[in-house]
């Protein structure tokens, strides 16, 4: 549909003005980029709209209230829009003592960092604005920059409350980058790739294939990851930067109107982002619990480029799956926020350095050993379980044109685990693999 629309409708219109929007022309390029940006900015902006409404409803229910009920009908679902109109109408104030330039820039820095990370986030098999080879790493790197806006805001406000908030945020985020990095390494280690599309596709199949069920260590490391993710996006119980009971409103004390709402958009954008990252890394991303579309043969293989209606349907279902999983993550974050009291700054540091970092390290080593010795796990006997993981890396080492050159090179250079992986699988695994293959043939 997209290609037909592009070639037949848009190109006809464009040809009236003497230009072309075919894929290899600059107009087509710009058009594609604009559509990507438009879709992504809607994920953030509309996402924030819905999540803020959801947060009000959830907070209300948890506190035994109803939450918004009137604006826009029965469930008050236009409440955020009304808030938005109110915020736009508010006066945009810059304090006398503020560093005006940085004060005005800070919200955009925060939002841009949160938004840029979406560029590498795939929403379905291959549906990413930019399929980056090191997407996990890129997202972690960019996500760390969001704190920049917070610190600039805290400093430039010229207010002691803001400065306190910013300093707390800085200490917190710099500390929590360590365990979050350690946690993210575990799925990367198991799959053997930093490409999020590859990581997601490797978990296709029954839900036992999801990495959280890969072994007990990945199960543990997910909870560490989620805790650290909550802390790194500055949500309660780690929201010391805006501790409203002590610091008025923390780093955004002096902000009002639209600039203030940019911070909120950035926060909700980051929440969805880390939840989506968790969904891809541990919960199979866009793969449903039962691989219906793989069974029907509708789903795209990775790298497939031709357009098919059924494949498109499978992709759309994948996007639904992904958004659902990420939304569940965001909902849990809200649930945590309205359930747990805020931690003190020393408790935040203790949680990070004395619990999260050692736990993540132990899980890292444990998952590595588990992978190294191919320890069988309960889910090996599950139907449709294919352990096709870590092919990327091994293909790389064994990818040699000439066997008699490769043989000595392998024994010398490749560490012990590499041949071990390729030569002997546990009988259980190969049996289930064979079962999986025969089922596929039958279908």
């Amino acid at each position: 549909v997209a290609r037909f629309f592009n070639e037949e409708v848009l190109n006809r219109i464009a040809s009236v003005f003497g230009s072309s929007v075919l894929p290899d022309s600059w107009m087509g390029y710009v058009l594609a980029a604009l559509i990507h940006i438009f879709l992504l900015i809607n994920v953030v902006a509309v996402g924030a709209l819905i999540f803020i409404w959801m947060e009000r409803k959830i907070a209300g229910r948890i506190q035994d209230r109803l939450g918004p009920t009137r604006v826009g009908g029965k469930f008050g679902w236009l409440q955020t829009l009304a808030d938005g109109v109110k915020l736009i109408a508010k006066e945009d104030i810059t304090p006398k003592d503020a560093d005006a330039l940085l004060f005005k820039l800070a919200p955009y820095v925060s939002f841009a960092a949160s938004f840029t990370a979406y560029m590498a986030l795939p929403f379905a098999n291959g549906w990413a604005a930019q399929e980056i080879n090191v997407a996990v790493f890129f997202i972690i790197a960019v996500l760390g920059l969001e704190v920049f806006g917070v610190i600039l805001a805290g400093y430039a406000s010229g207010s002691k409350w803001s400065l306190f908030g910013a300093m707390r945020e800085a200490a917190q985020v710099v500390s929590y980058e360590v365990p979050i990095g350690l946690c993210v390494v575990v799925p990367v280690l198991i799959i053997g790739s930093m490409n999020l599309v590859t990581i997601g596709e490797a978990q296709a199949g029954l839900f036992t294939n999801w990495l959280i069920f890969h072994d007990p260590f990945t199960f543990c490391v997910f909870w560490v990851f989620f805790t650290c993710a909550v802390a790194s996006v500055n949500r309660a119980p780690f929201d010391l930067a805006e501790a409203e009971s002590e610091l008025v409103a923390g780093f955004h004390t002096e902000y009002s109107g639209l600039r203030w709402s940019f911070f909120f958009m950035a926060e909700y954008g980051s929440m969805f982002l880390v939840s989506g990252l968790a969904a891809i890394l541990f919960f199979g991303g866009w793969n449903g619990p039962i691989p219906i579309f793989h069974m029907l043969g509708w789903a795209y293989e990775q790298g497939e480029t031709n357009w098919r209606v059924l494949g498109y349907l499978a992709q759309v279902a994948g996007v639904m799956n992904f958004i659902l999983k990420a939304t569940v993550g965001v909902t849990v974050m809200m649930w945590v926020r309205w359930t747990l009291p805020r931690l003190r700054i020393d408790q935040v540091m203790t949680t990070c350095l004395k619990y999260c970092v050692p736990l993540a390290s132990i899980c890292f080593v444990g998952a590595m050993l588990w992978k190294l010795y191919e320890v069988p796990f309960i889910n090996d006997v599950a139907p449709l379980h294919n352990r096709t993981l870590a092919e990327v890396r091994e293909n790389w080492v064994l990818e040699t044109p000439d066997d008699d050159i490769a043989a000595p090179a392998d024994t010398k250079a490749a560490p012990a685990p590499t041949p071990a992986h390729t030569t002997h699988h546990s009988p259980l695994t190969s049996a289930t693999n064979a079962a999986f293959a025969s089922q596929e043939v039958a279908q």
Partner: protein
Amino acid sequence: MMLLAAIDWHSVFFLIFALVACGFAIAVVVTSNIVRMAFYLTLSLGATSGLFFLAGAEFVGAMQLLIYVGGTLVLLIFGVMLTAQARFVSMATSGGEWVLASILGAALLGLLLQAGFSIKAWNSPRADLASLTLAEGKTSTPIGLALSGVRVDRLDEPNELLRRGMSGYLLPFVIVSMHLLVVLIGAGYMARTKRLGAGMAWPQAIAAPPRDRRRSFAVTGGLVSGIVVNLLLGMVCLVYWLSPVAAAEEKVAAQGLLGWVNDFLQPAAGWLCPVLGALFLANVLLLVVTYFWQRWGVVGLVLVPLAQAIAIGNSGLSSTVAMVFLILALAPVALLIVLMCSGPRPTMWEQME
């Protein structure tokens, strides 16, 4: 329209990123407010990472973001912390500093320009420009594998001499990381002593040790017998190593117990005996240290059998031998620790330093 279509967009983006990087680099120099400086530096470094992404080196680009831009973040925090007393303090640059800095910068710039323009391939556009595409994938994998010891790019190298570099960068990588670890621990330790000491760098060394320490007979006996046994074992190992019986040609000739030992050690590497002997003697030292009330002696006593078992396991003997040795060697240590921690209070462990 036609004009826009003729533009090489890759070059345009390169120019945009390059201009942002250079412009904000100059802004860093010109500004006097330290926080703004850090902010401009961030933008400049971020634009540099954009250049890397444009070149298809995504791993390096993300690395630039994580290390340099993230590092500037810390710089910013320190900038705020150190200037928070008198806010927006301006750092006026004196004339002399300007002169020195411009000479240095100009010299470096001249060097880089000269080097850049002296390379032929960089001066003229490539003939096959149209057929080039961005490097797709696989950019970070060879780097990571090379750091972990495999040069995938050299796997199919037919020349035997050129394949020598196959081992990759594992050793430099480990050396650098150990170095960093040492620096980290050292920094932490220095910060700690300063806070604890209240004027004295070594409060524990200066404080007089308590006099009335008591030690049960069982522990003393265990320590002394341990010293004797380890001394004997160490001497036996070293003597066996130095004796002519162990030499490879005569191994077959020896009879009786010695012959059995020779047969047993047949698959082991030659370095096993001296290493084991040295570790046994180290054990003697550690037992003496433990006798003089140092806790690190006990820690060492646990670690030495581990090291010995690892040595045995790696020397060519079977891992069963290593495990049996480990159990036999750790059992007395465990018994010793139990003895030290039990008994009437204060136990020996509590009295130790």
